[in-house]
């Protein structure tokens, strides 16, 4: 590794810590990096910021799909580990939308109470808007996906404290 790479890596680690990224994989062909941080510090973050920092930013869609590539397991593990937390998972592959239309308020936010069958988001698949319903009763404690994000089948969407 060249000294400038080390400097870049240091900067990258700082950035990842700042944004509480749990896991990070980079494969540029000549360089492979895999970083794992303490699960307690983990939360979701914008991959767009990462790409900007890295300079070698892939095209926006490739980046979006790359987010999909890593199965969601590493993110769910710490969430599910907490007692009483239930994850609502996506029943289909598609694009997630948190509100009924652009600019309107999201279906649910952190702190909201949700009922079983309550619509908590939309997944667009093949131009069809599919309403996603909560399969638990309780309080939303975490949103695990952002508006407009591509998601895969079974990907965790929300963490709900069941009550």
């Amino acid at each position, binding site marked *: 590794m060249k000294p400038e790479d080390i400097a870049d890596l240091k900067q990258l680690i700082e950035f990842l810590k700042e944004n509480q990224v749990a896991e990070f994989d980079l494969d540029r062909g000549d360089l492979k990096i895999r970083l794992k941080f303490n699960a307690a510090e983990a939360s979701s973050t914008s991959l767009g910021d990462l790409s900007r920092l890295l300079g070698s930013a892939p095209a926006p*869609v*490739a980046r*979006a*799909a*790359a987010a*999909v*590539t890593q*199965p969601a397991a590493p993110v769910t593990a710490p969430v599910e580990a907490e007692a009483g937390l239930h994850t609502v998972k996506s029943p*289909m*592959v*598609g*694009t997630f939308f948190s509100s009924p239309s652009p600019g309107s308020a999201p279906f649910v936010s952190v702190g909201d109470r949700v009922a079983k069958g309550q619509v908590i988001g939309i997944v667009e*698949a*093949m131009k*069809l808007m599919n309403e996603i319903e909560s399969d638990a009763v309780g309080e939303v404690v975490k949103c695990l996906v952002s508006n407009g994000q*591509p998601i*895969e*089948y*079974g*990907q965790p969407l929300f963490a709900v404290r069941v009550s």
Partner: protein
Amino acid sequence: MFHKVLIANRGEIALRVINACRELGIRTVAIYSEADRDALHVRFADEAICIGPPRLAESYLNVPAVISAAEIADVDAIHPGYGLLSENANFAEVCRASNIKFIGPPPEVTRLMGEKDKARMAMKRAGVPILPGSEGVVASVEEAQQIAAEIGYPVIVKAKAGGGGRGMRIVRSHEELPNLFHAATTEAANAFGNGELYMEKFVENPRHIEFQVLADEHGNVRSLFERECSIQRRHQKLIEEAPSLQVTPVMREELGKTICRCLMEIGYQNAGTIEFVMDSAGQLHFIEMNTRVQVEHPITEAITGVDIVKAQLLIASGARLDEILPAKIEMRGHAIECRINAENPRKFTPSAGRITAFNVPGGNGVRVDTAQYAEGVVPPYYDSLVAKLIVHGRDRAEAIAKMERALSQFIVQGIETSIPLHQEIFLDPDFRDGHFDTSFMERFLAKRS
């Protein structure tokens, strides 16, 4: 050329397509079910998207899920592999409507070839030899009896929408025709939602011979010669070889030309295979066309030096055949493929589970196409093909020697495989001498037990 391609398949063929894309500098997107999370096609693709639970209907056969994955990954094209959605004209139409290139023929052509009676008539018009039989579908038992009387028993009635041996009956006499006709109609209606039947003269114990073709999108079609696939059990091919010992250079040349002319007229595009039966007099008769890449395509690649999957990608991106293929395709040596299945080699019961040891043979003239590895899992949900072992020698004798050597070095533990069965077949004097037809396995298994 495409920038990014989604592979709508799993197992060895998904990996085969990924390899071809890699070599052409195309990015790849794998799709997978929850049962395939640790599969190699997922690991070796540039991106991977989980599209559903293990059941085929909810994942690999789920058209909205596949298209949705293609949209979020923003691919230019979808390669369907074989099986699954590869011969689904409706899927090809949805791809077209979604502005995604389907790597295969246009949906209209796939649909034509899927309606077996129409495909038969199209071939007949172009001068491809077909078996005597009905012109299109047979409307009634009376009409069936009349046609059968003309062409002579035995005859076979087949579902127009057919496949996989369902909706099919061999009829040996005038008296048994009504019952068998009704049984086939009912079975076809249940299996395909269409009970229409057509009739052909039945050939006893034919050889199964097929021609590989490539067609570009500019009206050019070329033949990549034939493969012999007579070693089958219950219509499942076990061993394929190329060239066929029974096809003479004159037949190869003339039938190749006829087929190409026919496919030009139809407007065929991309890779395809035309299946024939060869009767005891050595005559070939058209049976049906497969509008996709075949499992056994590597043996043709071995003897022609043409990368068929790369050719599919290049053709779909608009290349002309003369840019992809040499001016004259030479046939070199002899190639044989064994399909290694996860099944008990005596009882043929499927054997899913975790592989504990996996040694793949290699060396001169040996190719293995597989997506399995030590610690890999063969899920119970999908077909049992674990690997394809392909050998290429300067002649059939050398290819057989290579295959025997390679089979002895192919070690799979943890699950049962058909490797011991293949080893036994290669010891059979009739097989070694090339004396076989599609009834070989029945005789072989009867002798063995």
